[in-house]
């Protein structure tokens, strides 16, 4: 299928050098594909003029769904007809990005038949992204993939495709089954994922420990970060092995943020009551140290990129939750969170922004979570605060009780 051959000197330069080249990938696809070929010419034009030519997302999708396809049209479709329509299809990835070659090849075969042959493995949110197809191919693409057990991912004002770290699949540090939780939540909330009913996007990301390999704390409305409650178990023999190649005092003890460790050259000691479970020592001495006791996660909420009024990292909402199938407590909590957001959010307001506007108290009360010092870095500075009538009744009752017992209860 020989199409127009574009002269692409600027992007050709990006085929040189050691790092794998996306231009080489585009050329590979362009050999047999008119859309990919025009995408090359289109990109060279961007490089020449230093300007993009894609229009705002259009209204395209598959019947019944409100997401999973990102409409994309070029302003200069006449010049590059192969990318006049160049829509993205998001395929919901399997938990942990594990595949068999058979499954991946099948995905590729279908995509070559209907699309540009270009992909992102994966997109930022986690979906397997199929890059560039025409409107009339969308229904056939959906029929082909869905009949083989693949569904579309989320887009628009909906639950976005949840994603997770590799977890129990290949990591000794995970505190819950990130793969199973992600699969389970994705299945539970299929309706919220495909049919946009929220004020704006809602992202869920699951990391098994504080290393946070999916960056949940920075980019998920609900960041599920694994943690534990028991002491750190120490294998002193392995500590000695590490001591042969590592300055344990400089690299581990001295870098502990809570200074709860000591090492005298023979034995490593940890004052677990002072440990904040940051994971530094465990990651440096994984053969010697491991978490123990009750496992679960901390639920944090609200993180997002700068738009509109500044970036946010997620805030601790639930300091500890156990996460075991069927995850009923978490699912109930998520529904309460969405109900509150639905009541209080305006269009295009992420939940973190709504919490900021309406106040943490309104949010916590609505979802039934008590105020706890683990939620804050420090208490408020200025004494401007709300007192409800109920608060005052409570404070007064407490004092009355103290008068009776003669014992203060602060």
């Amino acid at each position, binding site marked *: 299928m020989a199409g127009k051959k574009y002269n692409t000197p*600027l992007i050709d*330069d990006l085929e040189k*050098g050691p*790092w794998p*080249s*996306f*231009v*080489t*990938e585009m050329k*590979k696809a362009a050999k047999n594909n008119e859309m990919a070929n025009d995408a090359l010419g289109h*990109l060279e034009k*961007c*490089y020449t003029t*230093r*300007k*993009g030519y*894609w229009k705002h*997302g259009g209204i395209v999708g598959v019947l019944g769904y409100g997401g999973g396809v990102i409409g*994309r049209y070029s302003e200069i479709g006449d010049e590059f007809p192969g990318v006049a329509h160049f829509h993205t299809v998001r395929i*919901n990835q399997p*938990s*942990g*990005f*594990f595949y*068999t*070659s058979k499954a*991946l090849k099948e995905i590729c075969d279908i995509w070559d038949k209907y699309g540009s*042959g*270009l*992909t*992102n*493995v994966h997109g930022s949110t986690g979906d397997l992204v199929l890059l560039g197809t025409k409107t009339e191919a969308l*229904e056939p693409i959906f*029929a082909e993939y869905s009949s083989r057990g693949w*569904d579309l991912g989320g887009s628009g004002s909906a639950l976005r495709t949840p*994603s997770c*770290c*590799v977890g*129990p*699949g*290949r990591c*000794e540090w995970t505190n819950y089954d990130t*793969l199973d939780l992600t699969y389970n939540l*994705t*299945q539970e909330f*299929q309706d919220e994922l495909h049919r946009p009913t929220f004020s704006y996007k809602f992202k869920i990301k699951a990391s098994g420990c504080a*290393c946070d390999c999916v960056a*949940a*704390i*920075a*980019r998920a409305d609900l960041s599920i970060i694994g943690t534990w409650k028991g002491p750190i178990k120490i294998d002193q023999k392995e500590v000695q092995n590490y001591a042969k190649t590592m300055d344990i005092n*400089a690299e581990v003890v001295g*870098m502990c*943020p809570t200074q709860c460790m000591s090492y005298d050259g023979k034995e490593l000691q940890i004052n677990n009551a002072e440990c904040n479970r940051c994971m*530094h020592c465990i*990651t440096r001495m994984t*053969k010697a140290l491991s978490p123990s006791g009750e496992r679960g996660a901390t639920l944090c909420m609200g993180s997002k*990129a700068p738009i509109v009024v500044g*970036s946010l990292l997620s805030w601790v909402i639930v300091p500890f939750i156990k996460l075991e199938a069927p995850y009923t407590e978490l699912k109930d909590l998520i529904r309460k969170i969405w109900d509150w957001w639905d009541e209080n959010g305006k269009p*295009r307001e992420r939940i973190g922004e709504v919490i900021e506007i309406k106040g943490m108290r309104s949010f916590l009360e609505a979802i039934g979570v008590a105020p706890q010092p683990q939620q804050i870095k420090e208490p408020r500075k200025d004494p401007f605060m709300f007192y409800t009538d109920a608060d005052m009744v409570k404070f007064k009752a407490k004092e009355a009780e103290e008068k009776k017992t003669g014992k203060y209860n602060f």
Partner: protein
Amino acid sequence: MALPQRKTDVGPPHYKQFLPPIVQKNYGKWKYHEVINPTTMVHVAESGDKLWTVRVASPRILATDTIREQCDIAEKYCDGYLRYTTRNNVEFLVSDEKKLEPLKKELTAKGFKMGGIGYGITNVVHTQGWVHCHGACTDASGLVKAMMDELYEYFDSKRLPNKVRLAVACCVNMCGAVHCSDIAVVAVHTKVPEINHETFKNMCELPTVIGSCPTRAISPDPAKKSIKINEQKCMYCGNCFTVCPPISIKNPEYDGVAIVVGGKINSLRSNPKFSKLVIPYISNEPPRWPKAVAAIKHIVEVYAKNAKKNERVGEWIERIGWEKFFKLTGIEFTFQSIDDFTFMRDTMRTASTFKW
């Protein structure tokens, strides 16, 4: 041929069918892992089983033929199983040590680049850029390619005090965790957008456009049935353009990139941090953005020379102080690095204890 019957709400396939047998057997029972070198690590299970991982770079944009090549390799050495990482690398998992060297040999022969494990630089998280996004004010894939060509030694061999996580965002929407990276490039506009008043009234909702502005620079223009933008207040974020296509903000001459540093997402040692602005503007210079790339490489080198082992870029800077960071790197300190948006209260210095 007739199309198969579509199904809705099937969700993703169950992950278990894609887990290699050794992973299924030792699921949740891993004991420890060791980084052997930047290309390879080994995970050891409580059962004593060992699983070697070889990590391979990816340009994220993959042609289906490349995915098929990866599959062929997985079939030959990994019983047909493979996985990808959050940072878009591909990983080949081997349970038989004898297959490890032949696998690496074939990867090398086929031109795949191995590396990215441990204290170095791995793949760059990035956005779509000119390849596929309407809002892009630079190309992310090109910048990533240019950066990684220059920093390649840190991917496959040379080590750093800790990981350096890089990211590129082609506008301030920042799809991906660019705002919490050790070093990141974010593309910026620098000029007030222009409004097409004729098409505005048919295409845009007034309250939405006014509400989209973080600095309240937008007000109604009843005469034109459109809006006006207060040039004194506009910070060129482009959010009005996102909600309203007749507002145009692209400017090939003045669009460019800024460099932010010192972010992290894990909680190791210190809490997760945002990246902070250190270089406010570098012109877009496709195809290789030489000045932006040089700036990043320079910051990496100064960090490598000065940080203590295990310190991330942000932790190193916090220990030495930002004033020292600007001094050591020789980066000019500009007004743009002083917050005048939402965080001034938290970011100004309130003590005389700084370094000269």
